[in-house]
C-alpha cells in the first residue's frame, strides 16, 4: 500500500453535503454533483416535456432544464418564495440539470458512520430517491441518490 493510497482513504472518510429543505424535511445533496446554486428566476415552460420538468432557464448563456423534485416525488407543487433556489447539478450523462428546492441551509461533512443506510422501512414515494439517512447533531438529513433523482429511463 503506497502513500498516495493512504491519503485517498483519509480524504474519502468524510463527504460534504449541501443541506436543503423541501417541505418540512431536510435533504442532502453530495457536493461533488453540485455545479452551482442560483436564485429563482423565470422558468420557460417547455410544452410536451415530462411533467416533472418545469422548463428551462438561462444559466449564463446556456439553456439548462429545471426539474421539480417535488413533482417527481409526488409532493404538492412548489411555491416559489424568496428563499427558493435552483441547484444546478452537473452530470456526466445528462449534462447540467437544475432542481428546485425551498431553501438552502448549510454544508455539512458526514462520514460513512454518520449515515444510516438501512432505511428500507418506508413506503413513501420518495423512498426510491434516498440512499441513506445522515445524522447531523440532532437533525436527520435524507441523502439523495442523485443518479436516481435524474434518471428518466422510466419515462422516456
Amino acid at each position, binding site marked *: 500500500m503506497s502513500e498516495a493510497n493512504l491519503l485517498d482513504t483519509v480524504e474519502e472518510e468524510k463527504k460534504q453535503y449541501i443541506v436543503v429543505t423541501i417541505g418540512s424535511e431536510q435533504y442532502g445533496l453530495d457536493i461533488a454533483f453540485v455545479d452551482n446554486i442560483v436564485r429563482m428566476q423565470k422558468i420557460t*415552460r*417547455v410544452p410536451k416535456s*415530462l411533467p416533472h420538468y418545469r422548463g428551462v432557464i438561462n444559466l449564463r448563456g446556456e*439553456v439548462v432544464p429545471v426539474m421539480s423534485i417535488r413533482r417527481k416525488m409526488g409532493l404538492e407543487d412548489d411555491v416559489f418564495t424568496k428563499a427558493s433556489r435552483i441547484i444546478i447539478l452537473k452530470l456526466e450523462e445528462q449534462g447540467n440539470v437544475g432542481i428546485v428546492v425551498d431553501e438552502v441551509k448549510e454544508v455539512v461533512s458526514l462520514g460513512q458512520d454518520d449515515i444510516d443506510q438501512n432505511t428500507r422501512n418506508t413506503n413513501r414515494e420518495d423512498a426510491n430517491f434516498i440512499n441513506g439517512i445522515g445524522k447531523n447533531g440532532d437533525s436527520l438529513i435524507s441523502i439523495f441518490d442523485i443518479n436516481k433523482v435524474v434518471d428518466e429511463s422510466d419515462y422516456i
Partner: protein
Amino acid sequence: MDVSQYLDIFIDETNEHIQSLSDSIMELEKEPDNMDTVNEIFRAAHSLKGMAGTMGFKRMQHLTHDMENVFQEVRSGNVSVNSELIDILFNCLDAIEKYLETVKATSDEGTEDNEVLIKKLNDYLNSAEGGDGEAAPAEDAAPAEEAKSDDAADGDAAYLSIPVDDEGRGKLSAAVDAGQKLYGFTVHIHPDCLLKAARAFLVFKAIEDFGEILIYHPSSQDIEDENFELTFNMIVASTSDDMDGMIKAITAVSEIESVESGEVTPDTYAEKAEAAPAEEAPAEAPAAAPAPAASAAPAPAAAKQSAPAANAGKAAKPVTARTVRVDIEKLDSLMNQVSELIIAKNSLVSISSTEGGSFDNQTFHEQIEYLERITTGLHESVMKVRMVPIESTVNKFPRMIRDLSRKLGKPMELYMSGEETELDRTVVDQIGDPLQHLLRNSADHGIESPEVRKERGKPEQGSIFLNAFQEGNNVIIQVRDDGNGIDTDKVKAKAVERGIVSPEEAENLSKKDIINFLFMPSFSMAKEITDISGRGVGLDVVKSNIEALGGDVEVKSEFGKGSVFTVRLPLTLAIIQALMIEVRDEKYAIALGSISNIENISKSEIKYVQAKEVIHLRGMVIPLIRLDELIEAEPKEEESDNLIVVIVKKGDSLAGIVVDNLIGQQEIVIKSMGKVIDNNKLISGATILGDGEVALIVDANALF
C-alpha cells in the same frame, strides 16, 4: 529535420492530389489517348512521391514511385491503357489513401508495404513492354496482407506477439545459452489507476529480484512517459523456476489487475518476425527519433508506433486538427467588419460619456442601427468562412459508381451538377455517408439490367444524377435515376407480410405513405443481401443522419421510370433569422426561412374540411394549426374576430399557424436544451432573448 509541423499541409495536399488523380484516371479510362490527362496524372503522382519522400514516408514514396513509372511509360506511348491497368491504379490509390488515414491517426505511415500492388504494377509494365497487354487479374491485395498481419497480432497472450528486433532476439538467445529461462509477462493495470508509470516501475522493480528484463513492450521510454494503454509486456531472463513467485510479486503491487505469463523461447519471436516482416520494428529505439532520410529498409520512425501500437491507436484521437481553407477575401471582409465594429463601439462609448446618460437622442439610435448592421454582416462573414463547397464530399462518387457499374455488370454513368454549392463544414463532413447510401441504392435497386432497359425502350446505359443547389435558407441535394422506380405494390405486399399494416389498411394507403415504409428500420426490399445495399440498414440510417443535421428527405418515384430522392439541408446551424411570436404570455421563435407570408384573417373565413379548419387563400386551401392547442397553453376566454396566421411552407405544402401576437423579426442563436428535455419534435431548440429570458424555437417542419 523535424517535419511534423508540415503534417497538416501534407495531409491536405495529399488529399487533393489523390482526388485529382482519381478524377484524371476516370478520364483516362474514357479517353486513353488524351495526352493532357496523362500529363496531369504524371504531375500529380510526381508531387505525391515528392511530398511522401520529404516527410520520410518511405513506403508511400515507394508505391507512388512505381505508379509514376507506369505513367511515364504511358506518356511515352510504350504502354497502352486498358481497364486492367485502371483497376490496378485505383487499388494503388486506395492503398495511398490508407497510408494517409494511418498518417492522420498516428502521424506515421504504418507498416503496410503493399508489395503485392507494387509487384502488380511492375508485372504490368514488364508484360506490356513485352508486347503483351495481359496483366494479372486485379485482386484486392491490401486486405490479404492486412489479414496476415492481424493473424500475427492476435496471438494468444499479448506477450507472445510483441515485436522483437534482431538485437532483442540476440539478447534472448544469449540468455538461453547462458542457461537462463525466458518468461513472458503481460501485465494489466487497473483502469482507475492514476500513476500507471509508477505502477509499472514497481512491477519492474519486483521482477528484477528474480532476473533481468530483456525486452520491454512498449519501450521502457514509453512506459516511463506513460505512453501506453492499460497493459504492458516484458520478457524476463531468470535462473529460477519460480514463475508463481514472480506472478505473486507482480500482483503484490497495488492497482495491478491481472498478469498473464508463460515460458517462452527465442524461437517464439523469430517465427513471428518471419511471418510478418512488416511488424519488425526496433522496440527499444529512442522514442522521438525522426526518420533519418538516408537509411533504407524499415524506417526507424516506425519504432515509435510499431504495429500493435498502431492497432491500439485506432481508438485514439487523430493527431491532426480539422481545418477549413479560407479565401483571403473572406478574411479581409471579416477584418473590415471587425474594424467597423470597433468604430461603432467607440461612438457608443463617446455618447455615453458626453451626454450624461440620456439615451433617447437620435445619434444614439442611429448608432444602434449601425451596430445591428455590422453584427449581421459579421455573422454572415463568419458563416461564409465556415462554408465549403460540397465538391470535396461528392468528388469520390464518380469513382464509386464506376466500381459499382463494373461489379454489378450494369452500365451506368453519374452526372453531377452544383458541386460548387456551399454548406457549413460540419454538414459537408457528415453528408457523405447518406448520399453514398442513396447513390448505392440507385445503382443497385434503381438501375435495371441492360436487357430490361432495352425492353423498356431506354438507353442501355443507366443514368444517375446528383444535383445540388440553394433554395432560400436551404440547400437541396437531389439524387435521381432513370431506373426502375419504386414498385409500390411490392412495398405494400412486403409491409403487409411484415405485419406493419393489415391488408385492409394497406388498400387505403397513399403512394407517399407506402414509400415512407422504405425509411423504416430494417425494411429492405432487396431479395438477396448484397454487399452493396440490401441489409435493411440503408434508408432509415439516411433519414436519421439527415434529420440529425436538421434536414429532411423526400422521395418521388414513378414505377418503370425512375425515382428522385430530395435531401433538404439548412444552410447554417447556429444562428438564424426568426420571427418572434407570442401565444398567451409565452414567446416562441419560428425560423424565417420556413415562413411564406403572414395573413390577417377574420374568423368567418375559416372553413371546415373533414372536420378540420382550413382557410381558402388566393386559390389555395391551407390547413390551420392552432399553436396554443399544440403547446397546451391555457385556453383563451374569448376569441377575437381577427386571427393572425403565419403561413409556413415545407416543399410544396403550406400550413397556417394561428398565433396571438407578432413581436418582430430577430436574429437568434440556437441553443440545445439538454438531453433530458429534448425528446419532443415540436420544439427544435431554445434561444436566449435580449432580456435574458429563454424562448423556444418551434420547428415548423414538424407541424406538417
